[in-house]
């Protein structure tokens, strides 16, 4: 296992110690390193919490900061944080305006966030939940509630974070986050496996010339495994699936996120984006906001995903708003 590690058991906590040292803008609550919260809460603002397993940096905790989130409960590698941790984060970030949970559609996380919401409710904290389910590959149309949440959650964060920063109410922030969720689609492809530190070997094996379309960010099997095709053909297949279930029309604007899974060079992500942009242009659709880089990784997995958010006027405004978090900065144009 080729990793910079001390004892694998301490992987997450040592990572967090590094993060707190590097970024004074975030701190932890309840004496628990894994309850990461912003160092400056803003009275009256809707709080936004997220949470989920480690191993996906900058998702989830990396987006805690100005114009984005207020707290994140941090789990073990690919494991949900506990309900208790989510609850502690909730209590810390609530500023009287309630808290919105945004997280990915995984049973472990749902069960724990549900528990946390019950606990917060007993304290009189209003909690709303938006559960990201952008991964087109993980279930068919009509069964969207079964889909996994992957990199597209970034757009939900960005939208909700900007809405909360504008001072909107919990209902309004939740409405906008949910709108971003409903209008986001992601397709991924993996070329190699990740290695979970405590497991120490590849989660799955894949041939030297193979790719897996639709693989999940924990190594969950995808839709089809085939011979690695040229980059353009890979994008054509991924975009084909996204476009088939959306209604982009000429003149529409979208936001695009080309996300690396951890082991793929940035150069290659731009080769993928080039093709995405050609396909959108061919339909008269404008990629108005573009991010290319690592946003939701799977440790050292080689691979990429394409997420597209179908903009409307208010989503456009919120996506464009400034943000400044330890792992993500956006200077408004």
């Amino acid at each position, binding site marked *: 296992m080729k990793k910079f590690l001390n004892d694998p058991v301490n992987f997450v906590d040592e990572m967090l110690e590094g993060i707190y040292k590097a970024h004074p803008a975030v701190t932890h609550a309840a004496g628990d390193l894994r309850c990461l919260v912003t160092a400056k809460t803003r009275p009256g603002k809707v709080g936004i919490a997220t949470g989920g397993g480690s191993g996906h940096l900058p998702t989830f905790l990396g987006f805690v900061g100005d114009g984005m989130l207020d707290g994140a409960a941090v*789990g073990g590698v*690919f*494991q*949900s*944080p*506990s*309900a*208790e*941790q989510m609850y502690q984060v909730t209590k810390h970030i609530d500023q009287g305006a309630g808290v919105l949970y945004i997280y990915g559609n*995984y*049973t*472990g996380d749902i*069960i*724990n966030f*549900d*528990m946390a919401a019950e606990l917060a409710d007993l304290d009189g904290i209003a909690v709303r939940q938006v559960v990201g389910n952008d991964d087109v*590959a*993980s*279930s068919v149309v009509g069964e969207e509630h*079964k*889909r*996994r949440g992957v990199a597209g959650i970034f757009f939900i964060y960005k939208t909700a974070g900007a809405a909360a920063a504008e001072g909107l109410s919990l209902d309004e922030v939740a409405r906008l986050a949910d709108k971003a969720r409903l209008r986001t689609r992601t397709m991924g492809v993996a070329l190699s496996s990740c290695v*979970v530190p*405590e*497991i120490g070997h590849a*989660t*799955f094996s894949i041939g030297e010339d193979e790719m897996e379309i639709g693989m*999940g960010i*924990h*190594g*969950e*099997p995808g839709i089809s495994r085939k011979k690695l095709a040229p980059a353009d053909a890979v994008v054509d297949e991924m975009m084909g699936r996204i476009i088939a279930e959306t209604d982009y029309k000429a003149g529409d604007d979208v936001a695009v996120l080309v996300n690396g899974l951890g082991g793929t060079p940035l150069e290659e992500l731009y080769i993928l984006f080039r093709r995405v942009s050609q396909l959108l242009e061919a339909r008269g659709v404008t990629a108005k906001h573009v991010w290319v880089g690592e946003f939701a990784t799977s440790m050292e997995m080689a691979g990429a995903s394409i997420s597209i958010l179908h903009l409307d006027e208010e989503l456009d405004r919120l996506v464009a708003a400034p943000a400044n978090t330890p792992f993500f900065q956006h200077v408004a144009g």
Partner: protein
Amino acid sequence: MQTLKAADLIYLFKSWKDLFAEQREFLIALDGKVGDSDLGITMSKSFAAAAEALEAEGEAAGIARLLRTAGATMARTAPSTMGTLTATGFLRASKAVEGRDALETADMAAFWRAYRDGVAERGKAKVGDKTLLDVLDPIATTLEAQASAGAPLSDALKAAADAAEQALEATKSMLAQHGKAAAFQEKTVGLQDAGATVGAFLIRRMADFVASR
């Protein structure tokens, strides 16, 4: 041994801890097929933590209190799906046996009924959805039947473990509807459910433990 006492429960958790230490790699591999390979880790970690916590607490705390400690410890140490569901199960079982010093067959039926109901409520799955619930339900119903028939605890648990293993076998033909496996419907057919495997392990070890003492 025809009742399970607080001291026994502490030993049982140690035995469960050993069991999941042994089955760690097997469960990693099983969960890896249509999941994320963490089940071996979370189960071994959470039962180890629970066994330690029970040991530290000591038999004087009583059965209900020990089960609560087990549940709370597991919820903290392994908040994955199975970790949280297992924790929920023990927390509900704790309530169901409140005030009992020694569990007989009828108490054990109440234990597993509460365990099953807790998992069902938290996970929102139905029997037949290819989850842990598919073995919890026959465990609970078998123990109820055994209790009505006046069976001694060791016989009742053996019957429940047999029923659980049959039910586990039956999960092979089911299509996963929940958790990470749900995305791979057809691919899950032929595979036994990982969480259900844990459930069958739990009851079989409990039966063997009671039989051997």
